[in-house]
């Protein structure tokens, strides 16, 4: 272990997995985390908020009150640690769809992203000034766009970095390779944050690629790739900060493979009992990203059951308030079918809108 905080290696194409806070809640020998206790408490707050939100909306979905949803359970350290490395006043997040709390951390109000899952239209619009793109269900399609965004922000003279999310499954898509290649060539200020949660619906990481590490892929595009323990928020933050700093200095992209585990399911339509080995799941549980932070803080005298209960209550209230706002937001109206498709719609589309709305106005 080198002295000093984590730094991207100048000598290696791919760096070995970075680890700080181990599964048992102890700090790895020689590790010098950037995150201090106050900040770690904030990270814990966001991770718990994410877990509580997921738990609540899965329950709502089971009651038929919520749309199809992909929880971030088990991946909270990846989602939160990466977002905390960004400056929401200048940096951008380009999500896939399993990073909800990263976008909320970046300034997207929870009730707005919640409204999207409830099928709301106007109330689900990302507010001006919030530097977040819409969630992307067409896997990896967001990556060429993210590269273009980062490239364009630099051309505009902005001091901005783009954090683009993808999974290990998405890294098999052509768009992944085209986007990373173009980012390397243009030296765009972008961080590709690959969450390797071991599963693409039912497709195991072993089937997805013969590569030993998804971080290796960066070498083919001429920029660093680094692996990190994705259940270790302190390590994720270290690596993300180093990559963001590198991008901001104009040194180009970084690929981060954040090795984690999907502790729930692909989405609420999925049933992992059909394909997941229960032993593998149980083993992953022992590496829970939230519990290890709580253990560590307990050791420092900064955490106990009483504090956990109080924070749980507070976060539950916060989440509930956002859910209530989202439920109360106006339902879509037929005209929303045509809203915001074109700046100048073709005449035929205008006529079709009139046809739909004719007789429907009260």
């Amino acid at each position, binding site marked *: 272990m080198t002295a000093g905080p984590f730094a991207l290696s100048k000598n290696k194409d791919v760096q070995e997995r970075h680890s700080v806070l181990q599964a048992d809640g102890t700090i790895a020998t020689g590790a010098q985390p950037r995150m201090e206790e106050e900040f770690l408490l904030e990270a814990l707050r966001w991770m718990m908020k994410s877990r509580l939100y997921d738990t609540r909306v899965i329950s709502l979905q089971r009651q038929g009150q919520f749309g199809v949803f992909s929880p971030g359970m088990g991946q909270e350290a990846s989602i939160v640690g990466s977002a905390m490395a960004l400056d929401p006043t200048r940096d951008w997040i380009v999500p896939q769809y399993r990073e909800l709390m990263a976008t909320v951390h970046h300034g997207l109000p929870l009730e707005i992203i919640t409204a999207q899952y409830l099928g709301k*239209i*106007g109330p*689900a*619009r*990302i*507010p*001006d000034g919030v530097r977040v*793109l*819409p969630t992307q269900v*067409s896997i990896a*399609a967001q*990556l*060429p*766009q*993210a*590269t*273009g*965004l*980062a*490239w*364009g*922000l630099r*051309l*505009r003279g*902005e001091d901005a970095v783009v954090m683009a999310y993808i999974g290990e499954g998405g890294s098999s898509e*052509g*768009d992944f390779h*085209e*986007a990373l*290649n*173009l980012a390397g*060539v243009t030296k765009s200020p972008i961080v590709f944050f690959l969450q390797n949660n071991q599963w693409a619906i039912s497709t195991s990481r072993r089937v997805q690629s013969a590569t030993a590490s998804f971080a290796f892929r960066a070498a083919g595009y001429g920029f660093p790739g680094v692996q990190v323990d994705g259940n270790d928020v302190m390590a994720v933050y270290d690596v993300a900060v180093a990559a963001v700093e590198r991008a901001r200095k104009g040194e180009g992209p970084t690929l981060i493979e954040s090795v984690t585990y999907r502790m729930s399911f692909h989405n609420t339509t999925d049933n992992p009992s059909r394909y997941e080995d229960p032993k593998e799941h149980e083993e992953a549980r022992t590496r829970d990203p939230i519990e290890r932070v709580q253990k560590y803080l307990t050791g420092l005298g900064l955490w106990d059951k009483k504090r956990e209960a109080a924070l749980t209550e507070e976060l539950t209230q916060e989440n509930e308030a956002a859910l209530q706002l989202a439920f109360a937001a106006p339902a879509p109206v037929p005209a929303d079918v045509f*809203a*915001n*498709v*074109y*700046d*100048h*719609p*073709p*005449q*035929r*589309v205008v006529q079709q809108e009139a046809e739909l709305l004719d007789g429907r106005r009260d």
Partner: protein
Amino acid sequence: MPQRTIVEAINNALAEEMESDPLVMLLGLDVGRLGGVFRTTTGLVERFGAERVVDTPLAEASIIGASLGLALAGMVPVAEIQFLGFTAQGFHQIGPQLGKFRQRSRGRYHCQVTIRAPFGGGIRSPEFHSDAVEAQFVQTPGIKIVMPSNPYDAKGLLLEAIRDPDPVLFCEPDRLYRSGRAEVPDGAYTVPFGKAAVVREGEHITLVAWSAAVELCLRAADKLAEEGVSATVVDLRTLVPLDIETLCNQVAKTGRCVIVHEAPLSAGFGAEVSATLMEQIFYDLDAPVARVGAFDVPFPAASLEDYYLPSLDRVVAAVRKTLQS
């Protein structure tokens, strides 16, 4: 007034727009030093620099996807896809992504992106270069589809495309790139979308076409004139938006219509034009609407393309048949 070919008109439009708007940039394969495979961007990298005229890696999806991202950052990208048939490798970034982005973002973001792509047969290109796939994009709403047929329109429609906040697929007729010069003024002017041009007026029949097929229809009209048949030729200019009013008025006037396009016949945009005429002016028609397209087989080897593409003889034959019914 200056006389320009389509290649020169496009080059002139790009140069003037880049001069007046510093956010406009070009990207694509070989658009820099080479000036594009058809030389439409000749001289632009020397004039505006490699940051604004960018030779990209050979990867269509990222050229288009990155253009979307560049637009989100506030740039005004004009991407070149070397041949329209090559959009297949970036199709998902055009229809599903560019076309839907504004709606998906609830209007927060728009994508001011122009994709230029030469297409069409008649120049003995290798495989996959000539495919007329414009109708595929009519089925991906959100994209405007522009099909200039002459130098004046090429400049005016291109400037309209670059300035339109909506994404535009701008298909260039490579067969006509250097086929002739026409008056193309210096300085900015635009040709609005959704306004078809009546390029020739006649009494007996209305020929409807776009892009290079307009030139074929004009030749057919010349030949028919020798037989005493006078034909109107309508150039749709843009498929999305479609100028339904001019189309219907011009067909209603003659009562007869032949639609000509280079794409395979079945589900080509001619089918849409024909259906529109049936819905709107059925009782003004004196004969069934006829279509002349390419055959419903893949574009053949260049040595066979003259048999595959709509020919002067096939257009004239379709007109004679329509006049007899």
